[in-house]
């Protein structure tokens, strides 16, 4: 397996969408390729970091503003 072939399967490997046979081939490639090993681990880490850190905090006032807007609509229509 070449590095390009490994890379084509990278997302499926990360998302756990590979067959057992394919996984074995990918793992065999990883054992001999530090480049792809690093690519895999740091890509996983990239996803994990974005998933676990709130980078856009919602302002607390926004919910109140929305609630008022909905109540105004409701008075007109319900």
């Amino acid at each position, binding site marked *: 397996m070449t590095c390009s072939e490994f890379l084509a399967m990278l997302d499926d490997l990360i998302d756990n969408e590979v067959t057992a046979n394919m996984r074995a081939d990918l793992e065999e490639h990883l054992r001999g390729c530090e480049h792809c090993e690093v690519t895999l*681990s740091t890509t996983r880490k990239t*996803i994990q970091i974005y998933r676990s850190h709130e980078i856009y905090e919602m302002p607390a006032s926004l919910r109140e503003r929305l609630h008022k807007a909905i109540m105004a609509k409701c008075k007109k229509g319900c």
Partner: protein
Amino acid sequence: MATIQSIAGENEQHPDVALVERVRAGDVSAFDELVRKYERQVFRIAQHITQNREDAEDVMQDAFLKAYEKLDQFQGNSKFYTWLVRIAVNESLMRLRRRRTGRMVSIDEDVETEEGSVPRDLADWAPDPEQNYSQSELAEILRKTIQGLPPGFRVVFALRDVEGLSTEETAETLGLSIPAVKSRLLRARLQLRERLSRYFKRRTGSTAVGAEK
């Protein structure tokens, strides 16, 4: 585990369905529950797409108001959440286009970049690279990094990896094919990884014995 849950889920009514029915029957407090449940996600998605705080605030308000008004059109054959996300994505893109008049903004456009083929930066990262930064520094790094991606990559990454939508749901929400979602996701992930390497790579002379040859 996930498979067992999803099989069980098919036979059970999603809790949102009951809330939607209560809203339809005139109970506004049920809509407040839906807002509380999804407000953060909608705000995040709007921020990811518009990259503008004021726009994201307006999008969040407009998306929920639109959902409230159009609730009769919600068929129930898709999840309420994905239906809501679709409204939020459309509102966000509209705002983005308005701000960038004259500049092409399309999520259908397949952006060809040099990045995203075989990664060039081989440096491994420190074991817990985020610990080298304060929370606010880290948030700034993550914001700056994702801001640099083309909108079409950013939105796919945000929906799939941050909000946890499936490939199929992301494709449906964005009106893209599954292969298009997959190709954008791979390139988005690789580009983010490469850009983050600048901040997170193992520093020379640290504990990495033998890492530098």
